[in-house]
């Protein structure tokens, strides 16, 4: 069964460092998303991406965040200068159509900022 894969599964970084989280969405999907979950808190929407551009982003997704689809398969989330409060589980998701809410999630990348 097709699945969304994310790497790394866990990354530890120092505050101020740049981090890139990678995702390979399901191959025939058109819409891509990043969500995050800070420990003990809700899963929060960060950004959605369609047709090589951001279609929607939350207020969390400020200038230190960026997303890219550098080739036909990968979808990346870059955090330019990490802060302690960026420590969270980051989930990538994809969907074949936008108006269904049927998101297919990866297993997540745990980011720990020291």
């Amino acid at each position, binding site marked *: 069964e097709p*699945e*969304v894969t994310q790497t790394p599964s866990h990354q530890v970084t120092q505050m101020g460092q740049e981090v890139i989280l990678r995702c390979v969405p399901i191959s025939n999907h058109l*819409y891509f*998303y990043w*969500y995050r979950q800070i420990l003990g*808190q*809700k*899963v*929060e*929407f960060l950004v*959605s991406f369609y047709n090589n551009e951001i*279609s*929607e982003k*939350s207020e969390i997704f400020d200038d230190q965040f960026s997303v890219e689809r550098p080739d036909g398969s990968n979808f990346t989330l870059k955090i330019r200068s990490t802060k302690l409060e960026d420590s969270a589980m980051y*989930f990538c*998701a994809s*969907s074949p159509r*936008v*108006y*269904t*809410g*049927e*998101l*297919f*999630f*990866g*297993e*997540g990348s745990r980011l720990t900022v020291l």
Partner: protein
Amino acid sequence: AQSVTQPDIHITVSEGASLELRCNYSYGATPYLFWYVQSPGQGLQLLLKYFSGDTLVQGIKGFEAEFKRSQSSFNLRKPSVHWSDAAEYFCAVGGTQGAQKLVFGQGTRLTINP
């Protein structure tokens, strides 16, 4: 603004017992409603969804949920739980246009006693 409340952070039931997980939502129009499950070390998997029509929806793994507009609720049920149902369950709401931005509840952790 959209919001989802899952009043129960942690529920413990015995194997074979019935289960009901509560979910209340706040949304200004007709929502799309979802239940996702997250097993340890796994991504979020869609259990079921409600868009319109029959207010009792069936999902995978023997789960069902009932949409009650008057109570703004979308509770998840299962008549007889199995040990493999131990997981975290998330209720989510999305708009009828651009359901990509799902708003999640805090999650309910389900523990199964043998």
